[in-house]
């Protein structure tokens, strides 16, 4: 942060900073997805928490993760299309 407040950045510094920002955002995104998936799939798959995850629970979790990603991608597509449509209407 020191170099930021002391004035202009060199090209290399700027690129490094941009990479860092991108990386931090990617990490935050992945964390958000992980938190949501754990929460949602725990709710769907674990009725009564036992002493260990049994194989049917594990299968359910795996399936739930895949479906959550499917849903995420579908939401992303639907939302992008809608934004595009709203833009064309302006």
């Amino acid at each position, binding site marked *: 942060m020191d170099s*930021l407040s002391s004035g*202009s*950045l060199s090209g290399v510094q*700027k690129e490094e*900073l*941009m990479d860092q*920002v*991108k990386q931090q*955002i990617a990490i*935050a*995104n992945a964390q*958000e*997805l992980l938190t*949501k998936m754990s929460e*949602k*799939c725990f709710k*769907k*798959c674990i009725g009564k928490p036992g002493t260990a995850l049994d194989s049917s629970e594990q299968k*359910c979790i795996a*399936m*739930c993760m*895949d*479906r*959550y990603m*499917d*849903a*995420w991608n*579908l*939401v*992303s597509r*639907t*939302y992008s299309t*809608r934004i595009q449509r709203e833009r064309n209407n302006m």
Partner: protein
Amino acid sequence: MSDLSDYSSTKAGDSELQDFLMVEKQKAQFHAQIHEFNDFCWDKCVDKPGSKLDSRTETCISNCVERFIDVSLLITNRFAQMLEKGGGMH
């Protein structure tokens, strides 16, 4: 995220960095919105996660996203009208 843009606008002169941050901020907002929609529409539309998203669930999810946006727009417009009339907030 507003800190980021405030910061970049006070440090005028580096427009490349500013543009970069603005784009990244928009991308982050887009992603945050998808997380929110998916969270919400997953609860509404997905029953038991199966081996794939069936077409009924897919339709439900995209309708859910579209109608949620409709509701936000409707409420925003109506709220603006309320403010214009000067009513409702006293």
